[in-house]
């Protein structure tokens, strides 16, 4: 029937229309959805954001200013930069312990041997705390070279260390900025002999002469009050270069005048047994701790065991002392043989490098053994990976060093006195008395906390203190010049300023980006403006030593990562084009975009 047919026709047509229409709609809808998904899944490019962490000007104005310089130039190339200031001990905690940073600006403690680069950059130290690879950097070639230099000596070693430097400057896990001069104020009227050793080296206190019998108290000014809060030789947050703890605690050997020399150890001998380096060390006779207890080979063995694992095997994984890690990581075994003999074994380490390990402070077993438990807060275990030993303030330190603890007032002062039974006074070896004198030059050392460099120079001029132990800013030099009593003392330092990168965070995980970060630093300009010329721009952490690679000598600009600009002005276009070449993109407003 035509009606039915028609009736049928229409719905069919409608259905057909509907179905094809719906198909079409569905098709275009799904296509639309697919488009949406593609567009949504594609990451919307955001601006690169970097946080630079450093200390405030009150703690280290050079670090703050370098960080500001870097922040300014990163801003210019389109990076959203945040500068975060953190108090000094908190800075160490956040950067060196918690590894909570993108970029940090700080000063590396003075080093004694190029082997310091091994714990600083070898990948196996990436998990450890302190100055052990805070950059979390991994480079297999570099790892090999770092292990290699350890087992070599002489020219062979020098060559490897040279290669390591070239590697570092090519890949910039961190950027070295400048080697500052150490500026201090000294007076010579009450105590003299300061010139024998660089001030800051603990030995400089031991080579003094008393200018008058009535001068009993050596008064020292320090701008850093941490020594009045904490005298723990293995604390990361509270030690700067360890001058004071280096006087309270003694080691088997000390490095001075270019070599590692016998100190508490009388002599040592290295031999090679099937690839293992073994040292037979003999202690001097009659050694004592400050409380009169005899210091024996057992204490030496304990110290090395303890520094290797402050939990003394009570934990699943060892918890080594972050300080002295480079040195203690060389040692594979220590054995006390009798009272005065120690047998130390090293793996794949040449004697030249192994000697480093002898300069570690010795700790009394009966005090530190009890600190191998987990750090507690109010009786409750606070953290699994921190022992009491690492956080104790060690309020009344007991060592075997030439100075002993007398008294302290937190935030204000610390008083030390000579240890009369130290071998330098009771039993000095022949040539030692020429350098160190037979009797202490003072009856006490009073370290006072001063508020600023300017205040320190004022106090020196007034006769209230005799020397500043903390390094001062170049801005105090005119005041020193005008003072009758205060004399200027400038030493070269090995404490380079560095910009550290977290090599695990984008875009800092990209060595090209890191190199560009290095190239937006005007190191010459920084030396002029931040240090007033009292520093050297450097291209290698080993600048100023005989280990410096020829090609990394500073010749007006960094030979590997030169500043991309002229006369202190950054050439932003040039930097942008370099970044573009490396695959980076910029947004409409000039922002550097994340990949």
């Amino acid at each position, binding site marked *: 029937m035509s009606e039915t047919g028609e009736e049928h026709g229409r719905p069919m047509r409608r259905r057909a229309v509907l179905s094809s229409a719906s198909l079409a709609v569905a098709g275009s809808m799904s296509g639309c959805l697919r488009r949406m998904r593609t567009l949504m899944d594609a990451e919307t490019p955001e601006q690169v954001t970097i946080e630079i962490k450093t200390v405030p000007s009150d703690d280290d104005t050079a670090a*703050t200013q370098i960080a*500001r310089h870097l922040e300014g130039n990163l801003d210019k190339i389109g990076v959203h930069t945040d*500068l*975060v*200031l953190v108090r000094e001990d908190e800075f160490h905690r956040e950067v060196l312990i918690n590894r909570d940073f993108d970029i940090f600006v700080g000063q590396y403690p003075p080093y004694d041997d190029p082997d310091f680069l091994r714990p600083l950059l070898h990948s196996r130290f990436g998990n450890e705390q302190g100055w052990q690879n805070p950059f979390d950097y991994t480079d297999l070639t570099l790892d090999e070279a770092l292990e290699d230099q350890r087992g070599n000596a002489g020219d062979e070693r020098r060559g490897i260390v040279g290669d390591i430097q070239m590697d570092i400057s090519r890949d910039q896990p961190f950027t070295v900025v400048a080697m500052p001069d150490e500026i201090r104020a000294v007076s010579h009227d009450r105590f003299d002999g300061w010139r024998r050793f660089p001030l800051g080296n603990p030995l400089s206190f031991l080579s003094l002469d008393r200018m008058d019998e009535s001068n009993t108290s050596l008064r020292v000014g320090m701008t850093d009050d941490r020594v009045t809060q904490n005298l723990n030789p293995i604390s990361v947050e509270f030690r700067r270069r360890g001058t004071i703890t280096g006087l309270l605690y003694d080691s088997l050997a000390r490095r001075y005048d270019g070599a590692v020399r016998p100190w508490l150890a009388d002599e040592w001998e290295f031999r090679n047994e099937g690839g293992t380096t073994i040292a037979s060390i003999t202690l001097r006779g009659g050694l004592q701790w400050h409380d009169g207890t005899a210091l024996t080979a057992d204490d030496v063995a304990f110290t090395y065991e303890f520094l290797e694992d402050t939990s003394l095997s009570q934990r699943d994984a060892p918890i080594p002392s972050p300080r002295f890690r480079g040195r203690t990581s060389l040692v594979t075994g220590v054995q006390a043989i009798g009272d005065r003999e120690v047998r130390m074994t090293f793996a794949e380490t040449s004697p030249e490098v192994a000697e480093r390990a002898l300069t570690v402070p010795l700790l009394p077993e009966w005090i530190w053994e009890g600190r191998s438990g987990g750090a507690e807060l109010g009786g409750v275990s606070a953290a699994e990976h921190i022992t009491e030993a690492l956080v104790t303030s060690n309020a009344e330190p007991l060592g075997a060093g030439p100075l002993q603890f007398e008294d302290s007032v937190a935030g204000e002062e610390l008083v030390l006195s000579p240890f009369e039974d130290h071998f330098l006074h009771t039993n000095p070896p022949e040539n030692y008395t020429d350098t160190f004198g037979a009797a202490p030059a003072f009856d006490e050392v009073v370290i006072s906390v001063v*508020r*600023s460099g300017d205040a320190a120079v004022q106090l020196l001029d007034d006769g209230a203190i005799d020397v500043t132990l903390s390094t001062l800013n170049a*801005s105090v030099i005119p005041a020193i010049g005008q003072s009758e009593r205060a004399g200027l003392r400038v030493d070269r330092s090995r404490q380079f300023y560095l910009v550290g990168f977290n090599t695990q965070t984008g875009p800092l995980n990209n060595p090209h980006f890191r190199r560009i970060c290095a190239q937006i630093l005007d190191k010459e300009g920084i030396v002029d403006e*931040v240090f007033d010329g009292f520093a050297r721009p450097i291209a290698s952490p080993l600048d100023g030593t005989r280990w410096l690679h020829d090609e990394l000598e500073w010749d007006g600009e960094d030979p590997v990562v030169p500043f991309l600009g002229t006369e202190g002005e950054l050439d932003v276009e040039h930097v942008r084009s370099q970044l573009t070449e490396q695959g980076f993109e910029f947004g409409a407003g000039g922002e550097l975009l994340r990949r």
Partner: protein
Amino acid sequence: MRVALLSLYLQLALVIGVLVVVGSLLIVGRGRFRHIQGEYRRRFRRIAPHLALVGLVLFLSTLLRRVGTEVSWLVGRNITGTIHAIEGDLVAWMQTFATVELTWFFTLIYIFGYAFLLVFPLVAYFVLPDLRMFRVTTLAYTFNYAIGLVCYTLFIAFGPRNFMPDEVESLMYVAWPQIELLTTHINVNTNVFPSLHTSLAVTVVLLAWATRRTYPRWLAVATPLAVGVLIATMYLGIHWATDVVGGTVLAVVAVWLAQRFAADTGEESPITRLGLAAIASVESTIRRLHGSQ
């Protein structure tokens, strides 16, 4: 160093002492002092507990300062960068006008002018017939300090001289290095927000306004002094403009709270009653001891 600190405090006390005497003669007038002759003891007993309250808050803050700072690093928010992002280089711009004379001028205002601002109202209001203004002042100081301390714990902020030493110099410490002994004895360099210098100075001006009919000259003196303190905190690189704004807000809040809570009469003031009771019991104990001998 203790001796140096002590001598600084003595210097401060001496200068304030002289200024207060001069101010008392010129602003308060000898008349008022003569008027309350014979009442000194009675008045002092009534206001002593209020002074003790302020002293207690100050003492506690000194005691807890170290702990407070550590707590601050644990729970506080580091807002230095945020402040700088908000206000930019205003303080650096202010320092472009720096001269040695200006630096000394603002240093003296910051230290001595400020201390005088705080101490003088206590003297001026002590001799008024009604001690309510005195109570309001001490309460306002207490609220300022207490709320300030809470802010210090919650926020970590370094001042412009610490954040941008390349553009902002610590002018006061360059001119007078020893004064840092005093300032660091009283405060910590992370406690920059809000500016307590500002809040207390503005508090004093607000109260001076409230007593402008009684002491018109005090308002005329306090206002420029307070403005000087506000400018000094920024000029010397110690505070951000944001801190000054925050301090002003704090002052308004503290004065409002003080006016609200201060009792109308001494009899109604719980602090006065508590203090009088305490003094009475101390006196009776002394008398008993004396008598038993």
